[in-house]
């Protein structure tokens, strides 16, 4: 249906409708309002480049200064098998995929569609859990003998630090750039931050106990999804 009558155009036209005094008011307000001119593309590029270093720095600090143990699990007894490499690669791909969906601009510059965002939110934690918990990797003798926290609280602390920093970095990169589906995007950013946290603790921790893996490795992904949804939509909106 087009709202036309015989011989009339298809739309209700507003022939320069906003009054002129409105323009003066807006021009004055705009002149008085500071705005950044650093493109979102640059901010995203910097964020993606910085995040792996931040995760590595947290891992090094935690392992050397706080827990006094090796920063990577293969130095702590986990055998370097092809299965370990495959799982690590799949987790890295999962993390990068979640990041791409969460902070990508999409074809129209309005971000990825809400279906892709919700898929990322819904699937990342279960896929991570399936890869790490269904058939846990061998812990190795050193890890089995070591005092690894049974509830995964050490991993939870490291994951929280990495996730929080990544969440802040991604939020800063996308500040005021999400006019559409800001809640879904916020949740997806939380999921991506959680995925980086999960990848970091996977590299760090050799434990294979389900309870430890669930609390210390998987739970942070869910927690950061909820945190993202609760805290950052308002910051993301223009």
């Amino acid at each position, binding site marked *: 249906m087009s*709202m036309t009558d015989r011989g009339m155009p298809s739309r209700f036209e507003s022939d320069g*409708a906003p009054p002129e005094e409105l323009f003066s008011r807006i021009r004055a307000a705009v002149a008085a309002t500071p705005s950044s001119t650093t493109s979102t593309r640059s901010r995203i590029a910097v964020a993606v480049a910085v995040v792996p270093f931040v995760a590595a720095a947290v891992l090094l600090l935690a392992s050397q200064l706080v827990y006094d143990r090796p920063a990577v699990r293969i130095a702590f007894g986990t055998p370097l098998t092809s299965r370990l490499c495959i799982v690590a690669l799949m987790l890295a791909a999962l993390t990068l995929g979640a990041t791409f969906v969460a902070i990508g601009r999409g074809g129209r510059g309005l971000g990825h569609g809400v279906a892709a965002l919700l898929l990322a939110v819904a699937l990342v934690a279960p896929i991570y859990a399936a890869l790490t918990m269904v058939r846990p990797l061998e812990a190795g003798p050193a890890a089995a003998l070591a005092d690894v926290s049974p509830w995964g609280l050490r991993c939870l602390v490291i994951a929280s630090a990495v996730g929080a920093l990544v969440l802040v970095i991604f939020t800063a990169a996308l500040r005021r750039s999400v006019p559409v589906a800001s809640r879904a995007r916020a949740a997806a950013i939380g999921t991506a931050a959680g995925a980086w946290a999960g990848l970091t603790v996977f590299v760090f921790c050799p434990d294979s106990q389900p309870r430890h893996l669930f609390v210390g490795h998987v739970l942070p992904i869910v927690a950061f999804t909820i945190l993202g949804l609760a805290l950052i939509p308002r910051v993301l909106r223009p």
Partner: protein
Amino acid sequence: METPADKLGELMRRYAAGEDAVFEELYRMMAPRLHRFCCRLVARGAEADDLFQDTLLRLHRARATFMPGASVMHWAFAITRSAHLDRLRYRRRRPEDLGSVSDAAQQDRLHADERYSPEAAVRARALRDIVTAELGKLSEKNRVAYVLIKEEGLSVKEAAAVLGTTAAVVKQRAHRAYEHLRVALGNAGWKEDEHDGSWDAIAVRV
């Protein structure tokens, strides 16, 4: 040949890069459609002006987030709706008396095209008044889907991107709005042409 959309895109690209001098030209190109969209989103004229001003300020603050090559108007519509939803959220937290939904000020802002015969202009105005009143009765989601597709000429996919939902949902919302308007116009004495979808008054009831 450079189309108006290309020109608008180029102006926005320059503005996003920090060239403040192009603001006025950008405003002149965007304002009519954007203001009309604001009038469709809110019930009252003064409120539409506030929303329009808020939208342009947000657009200014977020100018660096514009992606070169994307549609400026679609991006601006998305910001307008975001601003509108923020205002609705604010109002939900602080309810107040908003007065009548149909406001004469708003009616004056939306002009049916009057370049044609006086009779056609009168019919267009009558049709516009009914559509405006009936749009005000629709839910925000159905109304905005209808306005973007039927009045602003966006495709279903484009409207879905602007509204942050799927094409199927937007299609459904626009269809609900369309059905509501079709029934309302029929009740008001207007008949839809089965061939070209245009409307004609069959009785002087409006």
